[in-house]
């Protein structure tokens, strides 16, 4: 705060409470209050700032904490995991089509996994009796029809 008047104990109370206490006690005069005081009173922050120190680490420099934040998973993550597991994205055709430009907008140019998932979802809505694995096989076959080269083996038989 100003020379002689003010408290620098920033961890014990926020700036608003410290100036308010000075004004109420009369140490700081009303004309000499800071510029932000009126604005703070009219439009206070969403949450009143209260200092909470970080936990001190143990001997190894580590902290224990409880992970409360929910994990985000989607229904389609299973399909994506199966794609990666079956290594469909690594085959030559899919790798060529999968070439992404980081500068382009994702909504305009879809990657292979996005197309696959979209087709899976379309099949899921029409064929409701099939299981996950059967639907996956169906979409795999759908994409293979577009690329008969995949079914060819290296041997000339």
């Amino acid at each position: 705060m100003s020379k002689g008047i003010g408290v620098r104990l920033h961890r014990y109370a926020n700036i608003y409470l410290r100036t308010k206490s000075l004004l109420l006690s009369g140490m700081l005069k009303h004309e000499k209050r800071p510029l932000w005081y009126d604005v703070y009173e009219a439009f206070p922050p969403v949450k009143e700032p209260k200092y909470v120190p970080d936990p001190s680490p143990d001997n190894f420099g580590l902290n224990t904490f409880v992970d409360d934040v929910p994990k985000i998973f989607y229904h389609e993550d299973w399909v994506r995991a199966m794609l990666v597991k079956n290594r469909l994205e690594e085959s030559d055709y899919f790798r060529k089509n999968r070439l992404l430009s980081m500068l382009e907008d994702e909504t305009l140019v879809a990657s292979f996994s996005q197309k696959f998932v979209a087709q899976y979802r379309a099949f899921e809505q029409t064929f409701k009796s099939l299981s996950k694995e059967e639907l996956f096989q169906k979409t795999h076959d759908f994409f293979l029809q577009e690329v008969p080269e995949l079914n060819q083996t290296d041997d000339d038989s």
Partner: protein
Amino acid sequence: MTHCMKIWNGGKTAWNVYRSIQAPLTKTHNNFCTPTTNLHISCLKPAQSHRKYSTAENVAQDAKTQNREISALELEHLLEQPLKHEDFFGVKDLVTVEDLFKARVHYGHKLGSRNENMKEYLFGCRLDVDIFDLDKTIVHMHTALNFLAHMAFREAIILFITKNPIYAHKVETMAKECGQYAQTRFWHNGCFTNTESVFNTFTWKLRLPDVCVFLSLDDRVNSQHEAINEAAKMGISTVGVVDSNVNPTLITYPIPGNDDSIPSAELYCRLFKTAILRGKEKRAEMEAELLKENV
């Protein structure tokens, strides 16, 4: 199902090493350890009174010196008017949740870097990457922009602080365009708390900033920026973009969001600039009306 985790509270030893590598003293300066600071020199203009921070009195005195003949009563009335409206400067129209999403504001740091105090602002954790809840961020953003516009209306000194070299220059140019100030270089301890030594203010008085806007709270060494503690000690209000790895509890108006991406930094720069310019324009308008009435 909750589970305990161990995380690394890093950087404290590295900070000591960083601090010992200081810039060498130049011969033109005096015996104090005061290398050239990068606080804009007109930010340190001599104050008319003995107060270190600006008050309604200071601003009225500055107005007198600039020959703007408005009486104290009229000035008080002028300053009270905007506070009665919920959104006097129309700040809520500047940004939507979609803009925040496109600017990648919802990306936080990884699970191991998470600060416990940031839990309430998080929507969830997607494959160990913290995602901010943009519905909460937008509310914080609106309150912070409103505060900035009101402070610009009151002719406050606003100092933009960041230590991220990716957008440091952008922040400096933005501050110039607003007519405000920026400090994006090495921070010398005592700029706010020990001005006598750092700026040699034994013979002249100093006016400190009224708002410190942080575009990133952490130094490059994974520790908190020193200006946060200094501003909190000296009663300087702070606005800051808080990422998931920093402690937001010392900031008066935090904005939970991403501070590392360039699109998000561009968005923040644009928003802060428009809010401040709107405040200044309104002030000029209303003063001109008053002067017309006086004449």
